[in-house]
């Protein structure tokens, strides 16, 4: 859940200007702030350059030392899980505090991931890229779930896509241990909001959010209408109805229905089914009929060729 506007901590939510040198209190690491990258529920993320090098990193300054540390703990645990076959999930570089005036601001430095949010990516490249981005996203989730974690606050803004559909999850502030309560969530993608189940972190919670993200990407206005109705009447039936109405969602609907009802055994199964679905999807590429004039022109040119050959060989 977002916590914007909390009166207790307003003062350090103002962003830090480019050119500021951030020096760690404990380890002395020095980073030059280049620009603002984004804002999560727990803090603000900047693009920074490590002083004296050309290395670029993302640096997150927390609003609250405990909340940020809690997020760091998750990142550390994920780091431990990385193994040879999987992609490196870890991206934690350094953890420290930064003294600004009379305040200590906790921060951590992580790998900088280039890319754009899912919605922007799909608008630019076309909705059919959801096939690939979705597949890669499921792969990431599967790795997370295998380690006993649940992402929680899955939404388009937290999914970063690089040029060829590679996917990176950002903002681990909402990650919870399996079986615990979901720490952060966003209404539209929340199982509880749709009266479809609780907020206990399990793999199915992420599947549900994933499904709503897909619906959001391909049928935003319909989703908006459904979300704005009376809270008591909101249900998964509304989501199913959107799938049936929106032609762009129809190829995905079997998968999506299963995700919404939590019907997969585990995330690997969800991944495999998605994979089968996108490879079998009826290719709707409009086969352009060859125009009549082209056919006759081809026939004439063929005839001329034959004539030409005949004349030369004669």
């Amino acid at each position: 859940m977002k916590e914007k506007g909390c009166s207790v901590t307003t003062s350090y939510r103002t962003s830090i200007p480019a050119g500021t040198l951030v020096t760690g209190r404990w380890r002395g690491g020095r980073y030059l702030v280049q620009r603002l990258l984004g804002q999560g529920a727990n803090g603000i993320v900047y693009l920074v350059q490590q002083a004296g090098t050309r290395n670029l990193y993302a640096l997150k300054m927390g609003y609250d030392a405990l909340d940020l540390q809690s997020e760091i703990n998750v990142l550390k645990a994920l780091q431990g899980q990385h193994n040879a076959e999987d992609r490196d999930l870890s991206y934690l570089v350094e953890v420290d505090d930064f003294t600004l005036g009379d305040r200590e601001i906790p921060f951590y430095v992580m790998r900088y991931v280039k890319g754009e949010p899912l919605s922007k990516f799909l608008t630019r490249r076309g909705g059919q890229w959801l096939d690939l981005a979705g597949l890669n996203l499921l792969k990431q989730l599967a790795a997370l779930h295998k380690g006993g974690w649940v992402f929680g606050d899955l939404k388009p803004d937290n999914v970063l896509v690089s040029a060829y559909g590679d996917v990176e999850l950002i903002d681990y502030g909402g990650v919870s241990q399996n079986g615990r309560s979901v720490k952060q969530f966003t209404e539209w993608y929340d199982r509880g909001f749709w009266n479809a189940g609780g907020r206990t972190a399990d793999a199915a919670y992420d599947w549900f959010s994933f499904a709503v993200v897909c619906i959001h990407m391909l049928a935003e206005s319909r989703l908006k209408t459904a979300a704005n109705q009376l809270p008591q009447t909101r249900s998964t039936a509304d989501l199913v109805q959107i799938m049936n109405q929106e032609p762009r969602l129809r190829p995905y609907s079997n998968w999506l229905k299963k995700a919404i009802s939590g019907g997969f055994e585990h995330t690997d199964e969800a991944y495999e089914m998605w994979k089968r679905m996108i490879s079998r999807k009826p290719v709707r590429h409009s086969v352009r009929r060859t125009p009549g004039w082209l056919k006759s022109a081809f026939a004439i040119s063929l005839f001329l060729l034959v004539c030409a050959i005949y004349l030369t060989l004669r």
Partner: protein
Amino acid sequence: MKQILLITDGCSNVGQSPVMTASLARQEGITVNVIGIVDYGTIGELGSLEIREIAKAGGGMSQLSGTEKLAQTMQMMTRKTVVQTIQQAVNRELKHILGKTSVEDLPPDKRSEVVEVVDELTETTPLEIALLIDASASMKPKLAAVEEAIRDLMISLNAREGMSRLAVFHFPGRHGGEDAVLDQGWTSDLSGVRSLFQHMAMRGATPTGPAILKVIDFFRYGTINGNQTRPEDNDEREGMLGDYVV
């Protein structure tokens, strides 16, 4: 852990000072949080000052919120308060052992271990929240949103590993002597409850202070009508211990 969450849209005007009664609640080990609803017009200088003061005296936090953000604000506050209460206890221990004053003063490595413990306790500590809803005339159009937010809070509480339950009060009652009305006693399940607020008589008076006293009584005795009731607390305590064993 005990919390009162007061939801109001104006100033108290009858009876004891709510700041005083909030302070009393704090002494009883109950944290008082306040949300000021600001849908139509403003809550007024005086109103927002009182809200801040009540929360300060009650050891909790205060925030202004529109009804559309109410559910979110309630959950954020509840969670933050749990964390803060635990943090305060941890800080006392730290001071005792290390002479340091707070978690923030620890180097990152040590901080990491302490936060792990805080997170664990945040998830498992038994939690009781009494919601105290201002039902004076101006609040009437907002009550549907308040009820929705309460139901949403219940969903979040139920996801916790520790025991969580809530009770709902509104104030004032129908006649002059009734400072607060119990709408829903301790519960962990609202799905069977058709409508939280029934038999509401909207009156102009806002006896916030006396209403807080009633809720303190309820925490103590399980009723708002004095101390003549059954001590059903015992078996409950056992349940709480059970939660710690995990």
